[in-house]
C-alpha cells in the first residue's frame, strides 16, 4: 500500500457526578425535558460559577488511569459561540492550563501492543440538546445536559488503523468505567468521539490535509467512517479529482458517507479567554494521593484476581472484567451466593442471553443481584431445576419478581414424589411408541424428546437428571 492513514481522537466522556459542573442540578441522564434546570444552567445572569469538587476529583482519577502529568494549578477558560443549546453563549472549558497533559494508554491489537500518547485531558461543561418538533415546526431546547461535567481526552495522531481506534476506545471505556469516572455509554452519549483523519504517502513525515468527523457515538460507525474517509482522501490524492480541504464533516450512517459541514466552519473564532469568575484550582500531591487511594480495582487487577484467586477461566474472567457493569453484577451476586464459577456461568450463559433477547448490551443490564443469587441458590438446593431457574431469572429481569416467593406461590418446586414421576413416564412411554421404537432401533437421541414430554407433563417441575435416569432404565428393560 502506498498510503497510510493518520488518526487522532478527541473523546468526550460525561463524568458520573450527581450534580452538574457549576450548579447543584442533577446530572442524571433520562429526566423529562428541562427537569434538571436552574437559573444558573439556564444561563440567567447573576449566577457565578462554583466548581463541583467531585468533578475535579474524577478528572484527577482520569489523569491517574491514563498516566498523565497533572497540572499543579489548573484554571478554566471561556469559549465563545452562539448556539441555542449553549445557554450563556460561552462554554466553560480549559485551554491554557488543563487538568493534565502527556499521558498514554496501552492498546492491544492483532499487530501487538502499542502506546497511544495523549496530548491533554481537560474538563468542560456539556451543552444542552436541540429537539425538532414537527408538530409546531420549531426547534426546542432541553437544558438537562447543559453544564453536565465532561472530560475531553485529546490523543496525539498516533493511530494508523480503525482497529487501533476501536481498541483504544474500548480500553478507555474500561479504564474510565472501572475507575468510576463514567459509565461510558456511547449510545446514551456519555462517551462521544471526534475523529481527526488525514492520509499521507508512506515515508512522508508531514501530515496530509486533516478533516474532522464530529460526534461519533458507536464503534461500528467509527470504523465505517474511518474506512470511508481514508478512502476518500486516498482517491483525492490519487486521482486529483477532488481537492481536500481542512474541514469538519458529519457521518451519515444511513448513507454510509461523510458530509461537509463547511457552513459552520466560517465563523469559528471562539475568542477563548481565562474565566475571571472561577479561581484557579490548586491540585497538590496530597489531594492526588487521596484520589489515588480511593480508586476502585482496575479491570486488569480484577482479571488477575478472578483467574488466580477465584479460579475462573480466562475466558469467563475476560467477559466479566470486559464490562464494569457485569463486573459489578458479579460482585453483587457473589456476596449472596459464594461460588464464583457458578455466578460467572449464570451471568455469561443465562443473564447475557436474556439481555440479548431484549437488545441490551453488557453495559445496560440492570438486575437485582440479590435476586440473581437467590435463583442460583434455589437451583443449587435442588428446589427447582436449571430450566426453571432460567425462566425465573427471565421473570426477575422483566417483572422484578421475588424468586423464592414466586416458586412457593406458584408451586414450581421440583416434584419429589417418585410415584408421580414413575406414572408419568409410563404414560409417555405408552403414548410415544414412535420415539420408543426409534430408541430401540439404536437412535439413542430419541430419549431427549421423551424427557421433554415427561417434563412437559410435570409442568417443567421434574428433576431432568432423575427423569433421564429412570427413562433409560425403563427403555433398556422394555
Amino acid at each position, binding site marked *: 500500500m502506498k498510503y497510510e492513514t493518520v488518526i487522532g481522537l478527541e473523546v468526550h466522556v460525561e463524568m458520573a457526578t450527581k450534580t452538574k459542573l457549576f450548579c447543584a442540578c442533577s446530572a442524571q441522564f433520562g429526566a423529562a425535558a428541562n427537569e434538571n434546570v436552574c437559573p444558573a444552567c439556564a444561563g*440567567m445572569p*447573576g*449566577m*457565578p460559577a*462554583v*466548581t463541583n469538587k467531585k468533578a475535579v476529583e474524577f478528572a484527577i482519577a482520569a489523569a491517574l488511569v491514563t498516566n498523565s502529568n497533572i497540572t499543579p494549578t489548573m484554571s478554566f477558560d471561556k469559549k*465563545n459561540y452562539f448556539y441555542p443549546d449553549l445557554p*450563556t453563549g460561552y462554554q466553560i472549558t480549559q485551554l491554557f492550563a488543563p487538568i493534565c497533559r502527556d499521558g498514554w494508554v496501552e492498546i492491544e491489537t492483532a499487530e501487538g501492543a502499542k502506546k497511544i500518547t495523549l496530548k491533554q485531558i481537560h474538563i468542560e461543561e456539556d451543552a444542552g440538546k436541540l429537539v425538532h418538533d414537527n408538530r409546531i415546526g420549531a426547534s426546542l431546547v432541553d437544558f438537562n445536559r447543559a453544564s453536565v461535567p465532561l472530560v475531553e481526552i485529546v490523543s496525539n495522531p498516533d493511530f494508523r488503523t480503525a482497529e487501533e481506534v476501536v481498541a483504544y476506545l474500548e480500553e478507555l471505556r474500561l479504564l474510565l468505567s472501572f475507575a468510576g469516572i463514567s459509565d461510558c455509554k456511547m449510545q446514551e452519549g456519555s462517551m462521544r468521539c471526534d475523529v481527526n483523519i488525514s492520509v499521507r504517502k508512506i515515508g512522508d513525515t508531514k501530515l496530509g490535509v486533516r478533516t474532522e468527523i464530529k460526534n461519533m457515538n458507536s464503534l461500528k460507525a467509527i470504523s465505517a467512517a474511518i474506512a470511508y474517509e481514508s478512502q476518500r482522501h486516498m482517491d483525492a490524492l490519487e486521482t486529483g479529482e477532488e481537492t481536500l480541504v481542512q474541514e469538519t464533516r458529519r457521518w451519515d450512517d444511513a448513507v454510509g458517507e461523510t458530509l461537509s459541514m463547511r457552513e459552520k466552519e466560517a465563523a469559528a473564532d471562539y475568542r477563548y*479567554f481565562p474565566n475571571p469568575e472561577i479561581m484557579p484550582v490548586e491540585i497538590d500531591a496530597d489531594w492526588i494521593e487521596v484520589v489515588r487511594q480511593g480508586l476502585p480495582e482496575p479491570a486488569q487487577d480484577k482479571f488477575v484476581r478472578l483467574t488466580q484467586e477465584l479460579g475462573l477461566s480466562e475466558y469467563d474472567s475476560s467477559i466479566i472484567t470486559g464490562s464494569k457493569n457485569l463486573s459489578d453484577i458479579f460482585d453483587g451476586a457473589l456476596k449472596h451466593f459464594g461460588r464464583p464459577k457458578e455466578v460467572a456461568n449464570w451471568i455469561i450463559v443465562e443473564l447475557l442471553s436474556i439481555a440479548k433477547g431484549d437488545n441490551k448490551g453488557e453495559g445496560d443490564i440492570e438486575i437485582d443481584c440479590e435476586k440473581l443469587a437467590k435463583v442460583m441458590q434455589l437451583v443449587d438446593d435442588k428446589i427447582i431445576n436449571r430450566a426453571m431457574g432460567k425462566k425465573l431469572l427471565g421473570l426477575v429481569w422483566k417483572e422484578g419478581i421475588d424468586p423464592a416467593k414466586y416458586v412457593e406461590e406458584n408451586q414450581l418446586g421440583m416434584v419429589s414424589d417418585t410415584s408421580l414421576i414413575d406414572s408419568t413416564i409410563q404414560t409417555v412411554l405408552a403414548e410415544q411408541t414412535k420415539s420408543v421404537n426409534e430408541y430401540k432401533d439404536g437412535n439413542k437421541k430419541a430419549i431427549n424428546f421423551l424427557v421433554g414430554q415427561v417434563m412437559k407433563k410435570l409442568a417443567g417441575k421434574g428433576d431432568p437428571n432423575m427423569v433421564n435416569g429412570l427413562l433409560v432404565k425403563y427403555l433398556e428393560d422394555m
Partner: protein
Amino acid sequence: MDHYTVFLEDSIMQKDTLVTAGSKMLENFVSPFDATVVKRLSESQFSLAGRVIMDEFGIPSLIFEGNEPLGAVKAVADGTASHALCNDLFGKYRKQATENGCCYIHPTYGTVSRFGLIPLASSMDQIGVVCKNLHDGFALLSQIAGKDPRDGAMFPEESYNYAPTSKNIRIGIPKFVNIETIENFAKNFQTIDIELAHFEAYKQVMYILSCAEISNNISRYDGVKFGHRATSFRGLDDLYIKTRSEGFGADVKLTAIMGTMMLSQKQYAPYYEKAMKIRRLIKESLKFDTYDIIAMPCKISDDPYENLALYALPTLAGLPAVSFAHKGCGIQLIANTKCESALLSAWEVCMA
C-alpha cells in the same frame, strides 16, 4: 438616621421582581431568586425600599456624560434612601456621589457576594454602597460582606470588622495629581509623592478588559431563553441579529463590538493579553509598605474617558476605595486589599 432604607440598582436580583438592568433586553425579566445581598439585608435592620434606574447594564457613555445624576445617587442625595447598592465599574457613581453630597464605598473585590448581581465584567464587578456618610456606609457593608458559597471568587472570611484604625496614616499622592486640587485634604496627613507604574495605560487597560469581559457576559441575551425576543425572524442568525439589535442600546453595542474584537484570534495578543499583563504589573507595582492610602481627586477632566484613569485602580486591582467631598473637592482614597478600616480612619481625620 433612625431608620435605614436601602435602594437597589436595577442590576441586583430580587425575587418575583422586574429586574431589567436598564435594558430593553430584560424589559420582561422577573427574577426567580434573591441576590445574596438582598437576602442578607432582609435579615438585618436595613429595609429594602425600592429600585433605581441605571445606565444600561451599568455601561456609561464614555463620550458624553449627562447632567442628570444616576438613580442611586439621586435617591440618597435627596433623602429618599439612606443607602443605595450598585456596581460601579467605570467610576460614574464615585464621581457623582462626591458632586451630590454623598459618599461611595467600593469594597475589596471578593468580600461582597456577587450572587444575584447581573454581571458586567466578572473580574471587576463589585457591589458598592452610595451613602450619606461613611459610618452609615460601613454599617451597611458589615451586614452584606462575608463569604458566600454561591460566589466562587471570594475571600474566606465570614465577616469583616470595619472599625477605624488609630495609627497615623501615611498618604501617597501620585505624581500626576495637581497637589493644589487636594491641598486642603492633604494637609491633615503625612504625605509622600508616589509613582503609579503604567498610570498612562490605566484607562486603556480598563477599557480593553472591561469591553472583553462585558461582550462575553452579555452574550447570554440572545432571545432564546428569557428577556426580549424579536417578534419576527427567519432562521437562527436572524433571531440573534434582530433580538440584539433591538434589545441593546448604542453604548452596549459599542462595548460588545469592541470586546468581541479584542478577544478575536488576531487581536487577543496585542490587546487582551497585553492588557492582562499590564494589569498584573499595575497590581505588583503598588507599595503599600511605604504608604497606607493613595489619594487622588475624583475628576481631572470633563472628558469621561480621561477620568476613567482615576477609577481604574480599585477596579483593576480589586482594592477598597472610598470617595467623598471634602471642602468642595471630590477625593478618592484607595487602600490595600481588605484595609477598609484605614479608609474610614482617614475620612474621620479629615472630617473632624
